[in-house]
């Protein structure tokens, strides 16, 4: 099989198109904000912090748009910025101090309230709600990296290669984090059900 090669001009053209997409900040925010916000919210477990970090993410993306080389999708690039901001936020002493006392912390019960009720019986609905809360609680016990990678894979349904590009980690490292994250959730689910 002959390997498919992309002409250099086409790559440059694609890069230019992506850069021009980055210029339109309104469209960029409209298109990618839900994903970035969701990723940040479930990574830091705080709604206010998530809103602030999401704003910072788009501001940083706009200010550094000329550094975008077009070697990945805009979505992956934004997730990379968001991942770094989440990491910085998690590292800060301020976060550690306020983590447990945050008034805007995302509650497991609040999340499970939004579960679409497709269950046949009330009992099944209750079990499904319990499962969502268990996954949410298990997420809180993970390390920052494990949590972010879990959210990227299982909430945002990103490809492993995109997660590796967004986090700057190798593919085996990403998989190792996922094994650990799934292991924690599996243990929690096994204990509750």
């Amino acid at each position: 099989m002959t390997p498919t090669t992309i002409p250099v001009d086409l790559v440059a053209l694609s890069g230019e198109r992506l850069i021009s997409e980055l210029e339109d900040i309104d469209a960029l925010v409209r298109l990618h904000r839900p994903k970035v916000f969701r990723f940040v919210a479930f990574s830091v477990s705080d709604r206010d912090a998530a809103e602030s970090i999401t704003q910072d993410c788009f501001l940083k993306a706009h200010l550094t748009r000329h550094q975008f080389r077009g070697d990945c999708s805009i979505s992956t690039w934004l997730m990379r910025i968001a991942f770094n901001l989440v990491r910085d936020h998690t590292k800060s002493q301020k976060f550690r101090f306020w983590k447990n006392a945050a008034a805007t912390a995302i509650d497991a019960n609040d999340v499970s309230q939004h579960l679409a009720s497709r269950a046949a019986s009330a009992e099944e609905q209750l079990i499904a709600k319990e499962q969502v809360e268990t996954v949410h609680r298990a997420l809180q016990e993970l390390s920052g990296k494990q949590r972010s990678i879990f959210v990227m894979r299982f909430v945002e349904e990103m490809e492993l290669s995109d997660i590796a590009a967004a986090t700057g980690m190798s593919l085996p490292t990403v998989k190792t984090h996922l094994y650990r994250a799934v292991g924690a959730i599996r243990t929690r689910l096994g204990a509750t059900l």
Partner: protein
Amino acid sequence: MSAHLTHEELTDKLLGGSSLTVNAHLLSCPECAHELEQMKNSIAGFRGAAHAWSENALAADRGVSVVPKLPQRSWTANWVLVAASLMLLAAALTFYLHDYQARNQTSSVQLATPLTKIDAAQSQIESQIEKDNELLSQVDSELAEAVPAPMQPLGVLESSTSSTATTK
């Protein structure tokens, strides 16, 4: 193959990987199949709830501008900046006035210096110049001599030897 799927095999299956042996095991092992199904359902439920929650949260912020604004200084920061500028200006003004006064005082002191002192200094300079000239002329006269002062003993010796030679 062990009795049940390993954690890695189960996670790989969750991640979308498909292995013939794992698939075959799942068909024959209801326990592993049930656990995988339970994990899938839990994660899918969490994903659905997370999406619905975030949509709800973003809908609540609909009135708020979502486009990030360029960083602006707060009112407090502005006041601090104004106060700092005023203090800097005041300090610069004080320093300038102080310097100006000091310079005025120096010039007035210089004007008040008596003329006699200036005359004395001038005469001192003149006497020094005179001494220097004297020294220079002395050096010139020494240089003008045929035999330099340090070589004079040799000159005497040479004259005595020549006189003895002539007598022979």
